[in-house]
């Protein structure tokens, strides 16, 4: 039990560090997550996030930043596989539409119409492989 004070202090410090990192992460992702929940932002069939309604400048910046990073990783994979960036992007679009759109959230199909996810599966584009 004599060790416990030191151990506790260490554990406390660890919790603080992890907690601070968590808060920083939550703050950067917070606005986008909130906009996804409200349906203002949604996944698109083209593999990027988009706006169902006109966003605030800050939200637009954060979503744009995510889309730029997405394009970077799509480009890397496309180069590795010898396909176009668009091929990778639409494949990711199939994936996100199929698995990552919760009920009540917005999504955009190739017809350019925003819809709200209900309990039925999304009618994926023909080229998506299920």
């Amino acid at each position, binding site marked *: 039990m004599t060790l416990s004070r030191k151990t506790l202090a260490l554990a406390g410090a660890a919790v603080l560090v992890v907690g601070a990192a968590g808060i920083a992460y939550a703050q950067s992702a917070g606005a986008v997550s909130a906009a996804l929940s409200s349906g203002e932002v949604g996944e698109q069939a083209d593999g990027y996030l988009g706006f169902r309604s006109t966003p605030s400048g800050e939200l637009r910046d954060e979503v744009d930043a995510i889309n730029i990073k997405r394009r970077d*990783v799509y480009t890397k994979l496309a180069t590795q*596989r010898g396909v176009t960036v668009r091929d990778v992007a639409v494949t990711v679009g199939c994936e996100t539409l199929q698995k990552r759109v919760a009920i009540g959230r917005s999504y955009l199909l190739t017809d350019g119409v925003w819809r709200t996810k209900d309990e039925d599966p999304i009618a994926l584009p023909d080229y998506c492989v299920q």
Partner: protein
Amino acid sequence: MKQASLPLALAASALLAGCVQIQAPDKPIEINLNVNIKQEVVLTLKKDAEDLVNNNPELFPQ
């Protein structure tokens, strides 16, 4: 020699013609190539796309 070459060529072409078989397809030919090619690409990239999404959670907020 010149006269012999014509029947020879005919015989050769007849032999070659026998090698080329043209069969009518059972099903009508689909012209929707665009979608087929896309589907093939999507199929080959599907696993990569899954990994990409799972490995970059910060780019795919929920």
